[in-house]
């Protein structure tokens, strides 16, 4: 029941806003609807806590301890993003960049992206998961190209073609998975249900599953932004509207990594040696190294932080790649904290670039003079994303290092060097932006302070002392993923 409620809120809103998205009350209604969505995701979490697995639509949709983490995160971050978007939209309207048609498209597609992410997370049928990811790609392409500037159209085109090719590879993986599962589960709709596959995963043909995992990894890895198929990600972040960047970095990348994780659980059991983990480990490292060295000399602030997103996705992939309960726990925590921190960073730099009317770092100056809250928040968020204690990312990176040193000390050293480079580059850039005597013009949106504050306080509180029920939940999830092996 709660599953269907959670899905129907954004779908209904997407339809409504397609017609009335330009009315003055819509930005607030958008925020209110996502808040309702957040509440219903909490209700769903209560169900999952009671029953472990909740099903809907004759088993096609389900919720379990793993996906509920991402569902709550989606509910929370889409709420804060929608609150932020109220101020963002007002500013853009005043500058004349958003007409009635664009407002309708923007609000409708915002809800559509949220809907497709939730559908992807909730689907038990892996085919449905694929369809949801494709829908997310299509609706997000609309958001990226919303300004209709040559660059944004090119970014959306690149996104569309690269992800179209990627997702097609994932579909071939899906065909192979169905091919393997058909002989265990019989043909028909049940052969792609994850919970069914989970029962028979040990009996699936190892050769077919390893091929299938490779195809899935190429396809979904494109969506996660893993090197070498990360080319679309910085463009998409830099050219789209800021709320879209926050959703993309904070949520959509997670959904794709979540999908890889689901396939990996099946592949690990079937293949019996850690091929899937090794692939994730190798490409995770490659991603971190390439992303960190691409941070160098970035002069576009959203592009800078999108490379940092690639880096953090690489770190999470390393965590899942190492395997075992401790590393999986660290990677799950890392994804959660990264989502919260990165979306607040996009809120901060998005508004700063609205004031300065540019995204170029060397032209954004004087944020501390203009608004002390904004300047300090940017410094704090910058430190949080770099893993400075006491913020959450410090805790998750520490746990991950502990697991990595056990597995392979040399790789831990390489990772340490990469993180130090990222630390130097990003901190320097952030301090440059907040310093300066001359304050840029532009009003400080009061309402937009709330989402930033919520995210940063959450990351700090969870980093200092994570409440035991959340900790137990994450540990239980890591055990759920690995315990059955």
């Amino acid at each position, binding site marked *: 029941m709660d599953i269907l409620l959670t899905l129907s809120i954004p779908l209904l809103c997407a339809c409504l806003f397609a017609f009335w998205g330009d009315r003055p009350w819509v930005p607030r209604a958008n925020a209110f609807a996502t808040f309702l969505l957040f509440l219903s995701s909490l209700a769903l979490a209560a169900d999952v806590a009671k029953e472990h697995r909740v099903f809907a639509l004759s088993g096609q949709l389900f919720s379990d301890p793993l996906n509920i983490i991402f569902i709550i995160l989606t509910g929370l971050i889409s709420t804060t993003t929608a609150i932020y978007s109220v101020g963002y939209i007002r500013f853009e309207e005043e500058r004349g960049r958003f007409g009635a048609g664009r407002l309708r498209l923007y609000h409708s597609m915002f809800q559509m992206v949220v809907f497709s992410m939730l559908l992807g997370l909730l689907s038990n049928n892996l085919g449905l998961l694929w369809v949801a990811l494709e829908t997310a790609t299509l609706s997000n392409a609309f958001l990226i190209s919303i300004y209709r500037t040559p660059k944004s159209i090119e970014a959306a085109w690149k996104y569309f073609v690269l992800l179209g090719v990627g997702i*097609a590879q994932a579909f*071939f993986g*899906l065909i192979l998975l169905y091919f393997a599962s058909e002989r265990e589960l019989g043909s028909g709709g049940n052969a792609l249900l994850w919970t069914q596959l989970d029962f028979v995963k040990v009996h699936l043909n190892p050769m077919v599953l390893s091929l299938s995992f490779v195809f899935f990894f190429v396809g979904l890895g494109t969506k996660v932004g893993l090197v070498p198929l990360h080319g679309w990600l910085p463009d998409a972040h830099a050219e789209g509207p800021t709320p879209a960047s926050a959703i993309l970095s904070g949520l959509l990348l997670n959904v794709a990594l979540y999908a890889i994780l689901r396939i990996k659980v099946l592949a690990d059991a079937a293949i019996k040696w850690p091929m899937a983990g090794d692939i994730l480990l190798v490409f995770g490292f490659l991603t971190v190294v390439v992303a960190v060295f691409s941070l160098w000399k970035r*002069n576009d602030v959203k592009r800078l932080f999108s490379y940092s997103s690639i880096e953090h996705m690489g770190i999470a992939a390393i965590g899942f790649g190492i395997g075992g309960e401790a590393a999986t726990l660290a990677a799950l925590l890392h994804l959660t904290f990264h989502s919260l921190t990165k979306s607040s960073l996009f809120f901060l730099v998005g508004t700063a670039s609205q004031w300065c009317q540019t995204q170029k770092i060397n032209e954004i100056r004087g944020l501390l003079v203009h608004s002390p809250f904004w300047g300090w928040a940017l410094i704090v968020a910058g430190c949080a994303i770099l893993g400075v204690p006491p913020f959450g990312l410090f805790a998750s990176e520490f746990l991950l290092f502990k697991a990595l040193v056990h597995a392979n000390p040399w790789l831990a050293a390489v990772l340490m060097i990469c993180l130090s480079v990222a630390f130097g580059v990003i901190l320097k850039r952030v301090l440059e932006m907040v310093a300066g005597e001359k304050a840029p013009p532009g009003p400080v949106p009061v309402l937009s302070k709330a989402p930033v504050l919520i995210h940063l306080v959450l990351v700090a509180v969870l980093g200092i002392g994570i409440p035991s029920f959340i900790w137990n939940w994450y540990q239980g999830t890591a055990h759920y993923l690995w315990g059955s092996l």
Partner: protein
Amino acid sequence: MSHPLEQSLIELLGGLLLLTVFAMLSIRRIFSMIRIFVLQGLILSASTFIVGLVSGEKHLLFQAFITFFLKVVVLPFLLFRLVQRLRLRGDVEVVLNVPVTMVTGIFVVIFSYAVASPLSQMAMTVSRGLIGVGLATVLLSFLVILTRRKAVTQVLGLLSLENGLLFSATNATYGMPMIVELGVALDVLVGTLLFGVFFFQIRESFENLDLERLERTWED
């Protein structure tokens, strides 16, 4: 197998499908490329139909009908109209020259057969020999996207990629479950509408659908 005629027909159609992708790789005119795409849709729906008849899987017949409607009627109509409205004509620029692409294509086919041969031995379908053709179509369409710089031809590459996927699904497992097939069809339709919108936007901003031009606008 008890259906020698049908089986050789399916194999013939598989060979023809592979030929159409090679044609896409070598042809330079946009109109001819769309015609080839129509032919590809026709081959795909015919082969799905025959596999459906032989295996007795009803949903394959239904899927053959959807494929025919979408790939032979709706999409070509949209594409032809789009090309006429945008007054596109002339040749497609290719990144690699045609002979090199062709030779690469042959290696891709050999590779696909190597990957698919263990699968073919395990499969229980009538048309199990054709899994390699499906994979080759997917990878060759990828090559089409890589070697073409015009937006329309990249879209044709994507659509042909999707044809390859459907063909593989039909031959390896008699198609995917219904809910997945419907979702895919919906996404393809929405995607094509999106291309249309994009084409006009690109046209407005660049006077030209050549993507190589666009890439020079990036500096950062």
